[in-house]
């Protein structure tokens, strides 16, 4: 059986404590993953200061070059995996095996990660507002006649990762280019992507000691977040609650991303149906940037009906099928629980997809449990399903008075606003609850890599200090 070891400052370590993750379809053990005991993590992380210092000594230009080269290795080359080798096709099949993601979606995510590494210069430009990175090399510099100095807020970035989709890994990679060592706890069903990214970076010349990779239980994840100078944690509201008040930790919970049509645009809603469908269904609805709501001041029932007609055509297909758009649930009981929860809260709203399909949302294909895309029409924003997010293509079409936008929306990681009403735009621009604002018909899941995502990683890792000089540089 395949075995994935820990990486202790880049060195593989086979633990006596292992977890076996099954293939989503056969339920047979597919991969054995070494587990790090909490004490081992704590002991290792005592050495982070030295590692940070050694990585800081690398010129930024060299780190960017490493990222660019790693991008190609990640996409096209065989890379080490435990005692063996993983080809790009192996990677796609392995991601699919433990997460259920169809090959075509795994490949799309692979390209997304490739792009972030290949275009790291532009990504850092976006994060740093085009800072000359030699300022980080020297610790200070002059930009446009102004003295600047930055310091790292911590000796490392610890990241507790999810299993929902590989694309999420694009968020932490820039930390390496910003000279910050990485300590990663992969999601239990998706150990593949962070391991492959690390191997690609090492293969391209990155110092192996810049990477710790610790598959572990919750207590191991907690140790990582407590011991690293800065942290990121992905998870649901319950699992991330502990870290909400800790300014060292950036919490990535549910996105509650939405589309909003203004009164001026809602009459032409049919023109925007493609944008809505794409926002809801891409990547099998597994991303926090997928839309889980379409909020409109009128025509809610018609929009819900049209969306349901389009989305009900999306059906489970084989993992290898290039047309596949839906991922099954690796644990079928999770699908059942989600479906039951939706049904239990449906009173006062309408599951329009169920009406169109003439059947429920639970489906079985090749013995696996799926949730079919679901559109619920909610007559008002207070309905319990109006602002919910699930791990499949689910969206509520909510009727709301335009004057109540954005107040009624609650937090939205991404908000696509289709309107030319300047007053509404001004209110959205002023809202602290909108993480990413798309003005115009842009799918919520469309990413421009020179824009920050859910907090700015550079600001998370670095702070600017006041700086004056009276000496020659």
């Amino acid at each position, binding site marked *: 059986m395949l075995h994935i070891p820990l990486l202790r400052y880049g060195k593989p370590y086979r*633990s*006596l*404590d292992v977890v076996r993750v099954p293939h989503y379809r056969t339920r047979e053990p597919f991969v054995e993953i070494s*587990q790090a*005991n*909490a*004490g*081992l993590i*704590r*002991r290792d992380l*005592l050495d982070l200061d030295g590692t940070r210092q050694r990585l800081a000594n690398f010129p930024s230009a060299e780190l960017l070059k490493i990222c660019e080269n790693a991008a190609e290795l990640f996409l096209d080359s065989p890379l080490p995996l435990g005692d063996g080798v993983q080809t790009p096709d192996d990677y796609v099949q392995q991601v699919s095996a433990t997460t259920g993601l169809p090959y075509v979606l795994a490949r799309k995510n692979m390209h997304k990660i490739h792009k972030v590494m290949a275009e790291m210069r532009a990504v850092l430009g976006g994060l740093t507002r085009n800072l000359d990175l030699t300022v980080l090399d020297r610790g200070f510099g002059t930009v446009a006649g102004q003295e600047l100095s930055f310091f790292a807020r911590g000796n490392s970035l610890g990241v507790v990762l999810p299993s929902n989709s590989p694309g999420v890994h694009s968020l932490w990679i820039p930390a390496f280019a910003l000279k910050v060592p990485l300590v990663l706890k992969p999601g239990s069903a998706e150990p593949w992507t962070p391991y492959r990214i690390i191997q690609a970076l090492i293969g391209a010349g990155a110092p192996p000691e810049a990477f710790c990779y610790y598959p572990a239980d919750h207590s191991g994840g*907690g140790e990582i977040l*407590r011991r690293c100078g800065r942290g990121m944690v992905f998870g649901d509201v319950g699992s991330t*609650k*502990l870290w909400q008040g800790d300014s060292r930790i950036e919490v990535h919970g549910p996105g509650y991303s939405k589309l909003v049509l203004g009164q001026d645009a809602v009459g032409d809603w049919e023109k925007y149906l493609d944008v809505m469908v794409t926002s809801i269904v891409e990547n099998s609805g597994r991303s926090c940037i997928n839309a889980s709501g379409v909020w409109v001041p009128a025509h809610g029932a018609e929009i819900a009906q049209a969306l349901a007609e389009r989305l009900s055509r999306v059906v489970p297909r084989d993992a290898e099928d290039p047309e596949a758009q839906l991922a099954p649930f690796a644990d079928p009981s999770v699908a059942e629980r989600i479906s039951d929860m939706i049904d239990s809260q449906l009173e006062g709203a309408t599951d329009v997809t169920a009406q169109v399909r003439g059947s429920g949302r639970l489906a079985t294909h090749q013995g696996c449990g799926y949730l079919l895309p679901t559109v619920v029409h909610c007559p008002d924003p207070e309905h319990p399903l109006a602002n919910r997010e699930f791990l499949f293509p689910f969206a509520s079409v909510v009727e709301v008075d335009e004057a109540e936008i954005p107040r009624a929306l609650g937090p939205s990681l991404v908000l696509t606003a289709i309107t030319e009403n300047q007053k509404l735009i001004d209110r959205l621009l002023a809202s602290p609850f909108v993480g990413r604002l798309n003005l115009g018909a842009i799918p919520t899941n469309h990413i421009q890599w020179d824009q920050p995502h859910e907090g700015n990683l550079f600001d998370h890792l670095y702070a600017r200090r006041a700086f004056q000089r009276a000496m020659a540089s």
Partner: protein
Amino acid sequence: MTPTIPTALDTRVKSAREALDAWVREIVSWHFDPATGCPFWLDYAKRLDWDPRREIRGYEDLGRLGYFQDEWLRGGPVRRWVPRAYADRPVFIFETGGSTGVPKSRISIDDFRTDYEAFSATLPDEFFPRGADWLMVGPSGPRRLRLAVEHLAQYRGGICFMVDLDPRWVIKLIKMGEIDMAERYKQHVIEQGLTLLRAHDNIQCLFTTPKLLEALCEKVSLKKIGIKGVFCGGTEMTPQFHRFAVEELLDGVYFAPTYGNTLMGLAVHKPRVPEDNFAVIYYPPAPKAVIEVVDPDQPDRVVGYGETGRVRLTTLTREFFMPQFLERDEAEREPPCELYPWDGVRNVRPFSRFQSKVVEGVY
């Protein structure tokens, strides 16, 4: 078919079994005798339509008494467990559990001393020198460890320094989500231990729990500070922790893991050999205690060697009789070995079916 020739181990296993059966008869006679037994078992016998003293002839017959219920140990009157023969002796009470609700209590008179004196014989003098002082960093309070480790130190000619940790408070902190406070409490305990280690040169032996051992070793090299042997127990110990302790924490300091249990006694770790790959293998102090691994769904069936099941304990001393108690642990059944010619257990851990209900603290 070729007849099987018994090996020396087979012979010793058979002898051990005979000794166990004889000891069972003796203990049952004692606990069900109105002159010596305790009120609990004497009352129990009144409700039976058979006489255990006559009909229990060996270990297998203990099943007729049913499974010992842990509820019997929660609450009083605790004197119902004191054998009449010991009515005039000073009685200790040791508790287990108790982070919520009423803890289980077990009375003790000399058993803890007897257990730890027997355990002492398994400790190599080279690493636990006679006359050396000890440091105990761990749960004391109402636990048997409070007196047992100190007795062990004294029995070996040393003095025991103590630092207490209250695991019930740690579990409460974790349940409240006060992880940082739990961490600070742990550090408070560790700092006290370090102070004692630095102040007393003759402390050469340490008792602590796995998590406190990790925390101590983050601060100091135990070897450099003079520790030669570590006796470790109190919570679950995994093979990976065992390996981590030996390879990375202890730097050659002797490591003696144990499976202590207030109700049963102290199980001794089989000496480490490479082929066991750091598995944590324990043998009970037979014939005073028996550890078996049984089918969770059919707890009267002992599983095969190497198979996983629920741990079933039996305690057979003149102070305490506890037949066939189903523990909240699971393990693999381990065959007899040269040193211990009776069944043992491998890799004891919390019973997986209860796991969501059990919080392991930092202690």
